[in-house]
């Protein structure tokens, strides 16, 4: 039983859309509804957003929770500058980063995470947690996530554990010699 209650920060709607668009660029998914602007819809099945990326980012355990509004604002500033530089017209009804199409979002994130970019650390950290929402559901207990059909763990083919929540594999190997040993091997199995 955890002593410290889990805390999730609240962020404004515009920041939520912006970070959803960022998470969807890291691990893309399919649109949640026909007019979904944050999720670009360039992939089938759920991506980072459907996997709960915003829930993970907003959890204070990550350490980036308090910086989310600032990250959203920064990536929107970068999106504005990118649009100006590349002659893109932004749609004023949504945040600038959301207004970019998927390929432009990709190019911008590539720029922001290039070694030497002064803000690289921030964007790598944000990307890492977006990815973790998909590949390990780090905000949820793994066995419950699987039971509830977490799209990332399902896509990766993570199997169901035993009833006590532990994984055991009785069949684990081919069980036969598959190569010759290196000739310089000690009796206890080390390089000679």
């Amino acid at each position: 039983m955890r002593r410290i209650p889990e805390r999730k920060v609240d962020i404004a709607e515009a920041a939520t859309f912006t970070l959803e668009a960022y998470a969807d660029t890291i691990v893309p998914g399919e649109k949640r509804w026909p007019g979904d602007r944050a999720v670009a819809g360039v992939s089938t099945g759920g991506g980072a957003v459907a996997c709960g990326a915003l829930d993970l980012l907003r959890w204070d355990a990550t350490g980036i929770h308090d910086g989310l509004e600032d990250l959203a604002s920064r990536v929107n500033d970068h999106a504005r500058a990118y649009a100006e530089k590349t002659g893109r017209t932004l749609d004023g009804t949504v945040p600038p980063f959301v207004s970019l199409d998927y390929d432009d979002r990709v190019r911008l994130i590539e720029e922001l995470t290039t070694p030497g970019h002064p803000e690289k650390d921030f964007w790598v950290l944000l990307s890492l947690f977006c990815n973790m929402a998909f590949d390990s559901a780090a905000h949820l207990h793994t066995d419950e996530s699987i039971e509830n059909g977490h799209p990332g763990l399902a896509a990766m083919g993570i199997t169901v554990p035993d009833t006590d929540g532990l994984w055991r594999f009785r069949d684990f190997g081919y069980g036969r010699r598959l190569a010759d040993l290196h000739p310089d091997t000690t009796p206890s199995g080390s390089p000679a």
Partner: protein
Amino acid sequence: MSDTTEKTDVLVIGSGFGGAITAYHLAAGGAKVTVLERGPWLKNDEFEHDYKLGSSYTRIFDFVVGDGMSVLGGNCVGGGSVVYFAAMPRAPRFVFDRHGGIGRRMWPKSVSRETLDPWYDRIEESLSVSKQDWSDASYAGGLWAAACNHAGRTANPLAAAIDNSKCVNCNFMMAGCRFEAKQSLTVNYLPGALAHGAEVRPLHEVQYLERTPGGDYRVHYNIVDDEDYRLQSGSGVIEAKIVVMAAGAAATPVILQRSETRLGTMPHAVGRYFSGNGERLNTAILNEDKVAEILGLSRGDGQLPYGANAIGKGPTVASWDKLDGSLPEYSRYSLEQLYFPPGLGTILAQVPDASGPTWFGKEKKEILKHWKSWLTIFCMTEDDNEGVFGPPPATGNSHRISQQMLGRGNLSYKPTENTWHGWNQADADVKEILEKDGLAKVMPWTNDLVGAYTVHPLASCRMGDDPHTSALDDTSELRGHSGIFVTDGSAVPGALTVNPAMTIAALAERAVPHIVAAARAKGIAVTYGAPAPTGYKSGRDAVLPLLRKKELAGV
């Protein structure tokens, strides 16, 4: 006030291989031993199969991002031995003759494979290290062996500290072994140390050392919250005649750097010559049809012939064909099959033949759908000891970001041409073996996100004969600071081309009689000669005559 200061004979900082082994022997020899460990003390049933932040998976290890290098280390009672994958090969003979960047022998003349073998023997006996058989190899290891064989190479099941009769092949070893199959220090040296009266204090993070007027050491620590390591609740001090530093190669030099203003000048090599053990990871995405057709492998009806990424027990098979002492330095390496769990392992994997970004985006998502058919190959090459620690952070060895696991450290690592030469050769070799006849598509992990990546940090406080390029003499004592010994991975002079736990442990065993001699010189009634914590004596009986020749006091 000094009357109320807590005192111990020997203060051990860290409870991994360097700390647990020295604590056991010194306590068994009669010294009052106190071990300060910055991480928590988890019991068996607290090792979870769960990727959620706050489970044992994130509580017991630490991921510190530096500039050009990130380090994964243990952070719990038992240290690296609780989170590692228990591969325990001895270092090949040529390693001890390496010259590295300094142009002369890196290791002390007195340490060679021959002289270290009796100490390796002690570890094999204590940790029940055994030669694994082909029947112990996981699907991933078997596949790697078959691919090596197909490419005209040899392959070896790895020596490991695993009790296979208890192993369930869950591949959750990094979260701690729930089944006591992995022979972590929590099932041998540490219980032995406790039985002999040593005291182990978890969540005590040492910040700095200073000298007492009498020439002993005063060690300052902070108490860390057991759940959110960003929180600290108080501090304390303990005095000791002897200090054994075993906080790990990413923390020991930081503590010494922070202590420098009080202890006096540190040897030049403290916080320099860091090695990532030349580590480099490649991800292969297998073509399951080719695996069946070319390698003739099968997992039974209805199963993919491989499709087993999550099944196993860390690395089980390695290729040693390039561990050839006649090859030039920086072109010798081992290639080891490794399981790397999600969370960190997937984001650094790159998409082969990507038309867009390689580490994120729609093509990356497509390869994640084939995750079960990934095979990770771990290259351990010879790097150039190019890591340097910058000024220490306010506390600990990093600025902590997440409640557990993630921090930003001050290690800087700019790979030299030599290091890249080794990495490139190893990468090309993995590609040649696994892409032969279309078996797989292979790409190395990207260094662009968190730099190079090591799970085996070494050499940040290394031993050697030259005072200008080594922090420790050949007894593992810190130059110019009598009574401080360093026994963790930081003492290993350079990359080993194989997993280093066996060598770190053997060097810790080798340091113990020297620490005993220093302790006796300071008036501590302690002797050397305990059997292995398992009770076996043959390792001890083999080293005692060697020590008598050296006429070490108390031996």
